[in-house]
């Protein structure tokens, strides 16, 4: 589904991502882990077109998407959530998700219709599936942080993506919010036959749901494989899992 090969990115001499290659299979749930500054967000930004790589290629669904613009990549079926809840804060919850439908279905060039009732059913069904239907008319910026992250997931799902990239989906959440979010993610991935790639700090979350784990350290991929393989990899234990235990 997603194949990254030989990806490299330097920022004025600093090597942020060094020759990273890995792949995610269709309908797989994969995680990228690594300490702060390991290059996880940079890797995501390279995949979704926010940054152009120096060398290397990104293939998605048998298409070369290296260096394509974010809206183009989004339209090909890659959904994304950001590390900080990235929503449209002054619009209502309903309008947030509706806007994503408008954008994806190409209705944005329509400057004469009334936007109020457009994609009403689709938006309400999606809000129900992420558990925010009761908040449809709330101004989204006033939601709790956990709910804002849920809403961001809703925005990412509206274009009906084949793959979701989630940058720390449970960052800043309480333990119960984290659990609810993980269950929601697993359920949605199953229902929609999604491929998931996420970064996460919480190792319990990672080992609970990831089928494949890639470990980044100082921009380098030091391990990639099943949770079992990664857990027993000595280098991973040394640079990362060991650090956690201290």
């Amino acid at each position, binding site marked *: 589904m997603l194949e990254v090969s030989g990806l490299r990115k330097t920022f004025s001499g600093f090597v942020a991502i060094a020759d990273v290659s890995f792949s995610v299979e269709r309908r797989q749930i994969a995680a990228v882990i690594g300490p702060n500054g390991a290059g996880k967000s940079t890797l995501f930004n390279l995949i979704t077109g926010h940054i152009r790589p120096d060398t290397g290629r990104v293939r998605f669904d048998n298409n070369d998407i290296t260096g394509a613009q974010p809206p183009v990549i989004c339209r090909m079926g890659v959904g994304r959530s950001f590390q900080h809840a990235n929503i449209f804060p002054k619009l209502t919850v309903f309008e947030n998700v509706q806007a994503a439908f408008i954008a994806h279905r190409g209705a944005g060039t329509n400057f004469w*219709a009334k936007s109020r009732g457009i994609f009403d059913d689709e938006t309400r069904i999606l809000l129900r599936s992420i558990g925010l239907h009761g908040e449809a008319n709330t101004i989204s910026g006033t939601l709790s942080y956990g709910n804002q992250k849920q809403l961001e997931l809703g925005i990412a799902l509206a274009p009906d993506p084949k793959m979701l990239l989630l940058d720390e989906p449970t960052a800043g959440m309480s333990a119960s919010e984290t659990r609810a979010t993980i269950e929601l993610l697993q359920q949605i991935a199953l229902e929609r036959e999604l491929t998931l790639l996420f970064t996460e700090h919480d190792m319990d979350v990672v080992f609970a749901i990831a089928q494949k784990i890639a470990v980044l350290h100082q921009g380098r991929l030091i391990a990639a494989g099943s949770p079992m393989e990664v857990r027993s990899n000595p280098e991973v234990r040394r640079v990362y899992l060991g650090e956690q235990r201290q």
Partner: protein
Amino acid sequence: MTDRLIARVPWTLLAFAAALCIPLLASRFYTSLATDILILALFATSLNLLLGTTGLVSFGHAAYFAAGAYTCAILMKNFGAPFAFAFAASGVVAGAIALAFGFFCVRLTKIYFAMLTLAFAQIVWAICFKWNDVTGGEQGFSNVPYPDLAWMAGIPGLGGMRVGEHYFYITLVLVGICFLILRRISESPFGRILTTIRENPERAEFIGIHVRRYELAAFVVAGVFAGLAGALFGIFNRGVFPDFGYWSKSAEVLIMVILGGMGQFWGPLVGTFTLTVLNQQITSYTEYWPMVLGLILIVLLYAFPAGILGTLAGIARGRRGQTDA
């Protein structure tokens, strides 16, 4: 309960009906003032499509106003073009210039966007100022003819009126139609996409929006309507001058929008009304109008941080929230 009744009144229609009565009830002076307000309100509302809806701060919106004004005036005076043609052409020309300038402006963001719009506007002003053969240069372009409005005398009730009053009606109808179109655009799916760009361009990109293309489209639409306002103003003013495109004109319209409230569709109209009436009243008492204006603006902006209409809407929403609870 009363709030809900208030919400159901067709205010827009009532305001239009009331405006229709102005020449019948008020003096020529106030009819002329009303024409002035209507035209500038259209100018301000066109800017608000950028400022309030898309979140783009343009410091050079006067360029498109001036472009429209010169186009209409030159076509009517030098080429004897009928008003309908000249009016439409001024929108097209202003839109085309907005397309050319906007192409570069939307490549920048925030303050750099604002500075580039200002730079382009100064170019327009310089051209108007120096190109004597076409624009009349520093002296401007005076004696712009009124459109032929004799046919309006045939409309019952408008028989005994002067050309200034007929022109008020033409302005009212044309500006009214422009308002309807702009409102329709801001409530359309296109308008909704513009608000997502205002709120969060990064996220907007990743719901599949080509942010720059939408910004450019908004820039062109705003330019077209600024041009139409300029066309009406040139005739109303009986002359077109380089000052129409000067940066102070851009600042003035920006103040009108912010004063009225850029979060509200009718905010710029309220701002234009307030600023124009204040100007009119205060200059009749003192020659220090800019200073008094400055003080009043400071007070208004502190008392109404969301603009006059924005603050009123906030109060109304708060009251409705209380009665519902």
